[in-house]
């Protein structure tokens, strides 16, 4: 079943913005791919501690992971609401997604500061360097996502989000889920496989 949107006609029948955004996500795969490769290549090569098993807090990060998963759920619900034209719930889900994002970020800030207190900094060893740059890049992406979500939320408050421009929410959603998916990989590769 398809719903025709009355916008531009394109050669492939696909929204140009969405297509560009998928290409962007493809590109991001290689950005994170390179960072994760660096992490893996340097794994176990730190000459001084602290090492991953000394410092990574699995229960804490599991909560963060759960939090991001839930935010993804809120995000799809927000999109579904916008597509229904249900602005009221759209506002709720959007702000919920953003709040969960902020919660994740606070968790990361807490994690980073406690690591620094325990003696792991960017400069300490290769683990510190690769860990902070990888998770930091991810955190930066989450930050951008939160700003984006809040912008959409403000638009929703202004009543400017309609089913017709649902694609703007959809693209933001793509971004948000992609960031979530990257976290799924990081959680496994960095935290669980030590």
């Amino acid at each position, binding site marked *: 079943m398809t719903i025709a949107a009355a916008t531009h006609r394109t050669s492939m029948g696909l*929204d140009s913005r969405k297509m560009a955004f998928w290409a962007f996500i*493809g590109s991001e795969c290689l950005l994170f791919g390179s960072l994760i490769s660096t992490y893996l290549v340097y794994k176990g090569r730190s000459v001084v501690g602290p090492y991953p098993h000394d410092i990574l807090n699995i229960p804490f990060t599991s909560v963060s992971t759960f939090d991001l998963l839930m935010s993804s759920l809120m995000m799809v619900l927000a999109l579904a609401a916008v597509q229904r034209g249900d602005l009221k719930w759209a506002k709720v889900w959007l702000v919920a997604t953003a709040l969960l994002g902020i919660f994740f970020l606070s968790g990361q800030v807490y994690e980073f500061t406690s690591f620094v207190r325990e003696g792991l900094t960017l400069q300490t060893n290769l683990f510190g360097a690769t860990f902070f740059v990888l998770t930091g890049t991810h955190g930066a992406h989450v930050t951008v996502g939160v700003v984006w979500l809040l912008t959409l939320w403000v638009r929703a408050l202004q009543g400017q989000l309609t089913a017709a421009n649902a694609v703007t929410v959809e693209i933001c959603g793509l971004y948000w889920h992609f960031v979530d998916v990257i976290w799924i990989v990081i959680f496994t590769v960095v935290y669980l496989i030590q």
Partner: protein
Amino acid sequence: MQQPSTDEHPVVQHAHPTAGVYLRVATILVILTVIEVGVFYVPAFHSILVPALLLLSAVKFTLVVMFYMHLKMDSRFFTFLFGGPLLLGLGMTMGLMFLFGAFALRR
């Protein structure tokens, strides 16, 4: 790449799953995460820890991409745009790990 079609087409929005599907997917994701963490803590699993975790996270990855990012229902071309670079990235990671001796195949 799928052969893109000839003429101009109106932009179509493919139907998205219902909230019910979303909730079910979320439930599975949470369960999988619990299993992941569980596997991590149970010593009996340590021999298969790495493959098990990789498999689980691949399943989670796929679920989010298929359902939340709608790749399952959306144009196959998007799957190509995403999957192509993803595979390149995966190949790059494997290549680099090989070159840096992570698989200990190097002489």
